[in-house]
C-alpha cells in the first residue's frame, strides 16, 4: 500500500483520524494556501478560505472514493471553496478581482503584499489574461501541477488547458520584454 492510500485509510479510521489529519495539514496546508491566495488575492481572504477548505476535507473524507488522487481532490475543494467565497462576497470581491484596476488596488492595499515594480508588472499582465489562461498559468507555473491534475481540478480537457497555457506564457513573455 502506498503512503497516500495509507493516509486515506488512517483518515477513515476513527482512532487514527486526528493524527492522520494533522499529517494531511503538514503536507498540504502551505500548497493549498498559495493556490487559494492567488484566487482570492488578499491574505485574510485566503486564511478564511483555507480554514473552510480543511473543514470540508475533514467532513468529506469518509465519502472520498479515490476516483481521483487525494491531492487533486483537495485542490478541487480549495478551488471550489475559493470561487464560492468570491461569489458570496461578489459585490466586494468578484467584480473587483475580474476588473484589472480594482484587482491591483485590492492587491496593493493588502498589508501582506511587498511587491516592487517588477512583481506589480507581472500581476498587471496576469490580471489582463482571460480567466482560463490566468488559472491554468498560475496552477502550472506556481503550483507546479501537471496538465492532467489541472484538468481534473477545473474539469477542462487537457488539450484546451495546454493551448490556454502556451498562449498565456507567450503573452506574458511578450509584455515582460516590452
Amino acid at each position, binding site marked *: 500500500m*502506498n*503512503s*497516500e492510500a495509507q*493516509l486515506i485509510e488512517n483518515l477513515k479510521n476513527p482512532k487514527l483520524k486526528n493524527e492522520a*489529519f*494533522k499529517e494531511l*495539514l*503538514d*503536507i498540504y*496546508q*502551505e*500548497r493549498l*494556501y*498559495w493556490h487559494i*491566495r*492567488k484566487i482570492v488575492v488578499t*491574505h485574510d481572504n485566503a*486564511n478564511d478560505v*483555507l*480554514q473552510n477548505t*480543511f*473543514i470540508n476535507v*475533514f*467532513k468529506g473524507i469518509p465519502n472520498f472514493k479515490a476516483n481521483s*488522487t*487525494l*491531492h487533486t481532490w483537495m485542490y478541487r475543494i480549495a478551488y471550489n471553496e475559493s470561487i464560492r467565497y468570491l461569489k458570496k462576497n461578489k459585490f466586494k470581491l468578484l467584480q473587483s478581482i475580474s476588473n484589472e484596476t480594482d484587482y491591483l488596488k485590492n492587491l496593493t492595499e493588502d498589508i*501582506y*503584499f*511587498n*511587491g*516592487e515594480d517588477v*512583481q*506589480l508588472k*507581472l*500581476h498587471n499582465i496576469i490580471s489582463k489574461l482571460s480567466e482560463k489562461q490566468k488559472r491554468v498559468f498560475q496552477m502550472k507555473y*506556481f*503550483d*507546479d501541477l501537471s496538465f492532467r491534475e489541472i484538468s481534473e481540478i477545473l474539469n477542462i480537457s487537457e488539450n484546451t488547458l495546454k493551448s490556454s497555457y502556451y498562449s498565456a506564457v507567450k503573452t506574458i513573455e511578450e509584455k515582460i520584454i516590452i
Partner: protein
Amino acid sequence: MDNKAHKNITKLHKEKLGLDIPEDFFNTSKDSILNAVAENKQRTVFTLRPIISYAVAASIILLLGIGYWLQNNTSQINPDINNTEEFSSLIMDAEDFLVSSLMIDDKDINTYMDAFILNEIIVEAELEEQALENIFINSIFIEDSIINIFIEDSLIENVVL
C-alpha cells in the same frame, strides 16, 4: 504518494509575486484549523442527537393529531343526525317547503335538502303502498264480472299515473 516537496513555494510566491504572509503563519494556521474542525465536529454531534428526539416528538404529535381528528370527525357526524331530525320536524310542521327553507342558514341548506328529499320519498312510498292495498280491499266488494275492468282502471290510476 505524489508528495511534491514544495518547500520553496512560499519563497517563489514572495519573489515572483511579492506576496507575503505573517510570521509563523502556517503553525498558527494549523492550530486554528484543528480547533475549527474540532468545533465543527462537536457541533455536528450536537445536531445529530436531537434528530432522534425530533422524530419521536413528531410521531407523538402525529398520533395526537390523528386522535383529535378522529374524535372531531365523530362529533361532526352527530350534529348532522340531530340536525336531520330537527329538519324533518320542521318539514312536517311547515306546509310549504319553500317558506320553511327561508329559515335555514346557508351552511345548513344541504342537510336540510337531504332531509326534505328523504321525507318526500318515504311519504310518497307509503302513500303508494296504501293505494295498492286499497285496490285489493275494494276489489273484494266488486263482482267477478267487472273485476278485470276495476283492477285495470285502478292500477292505471294509482300505480302508472
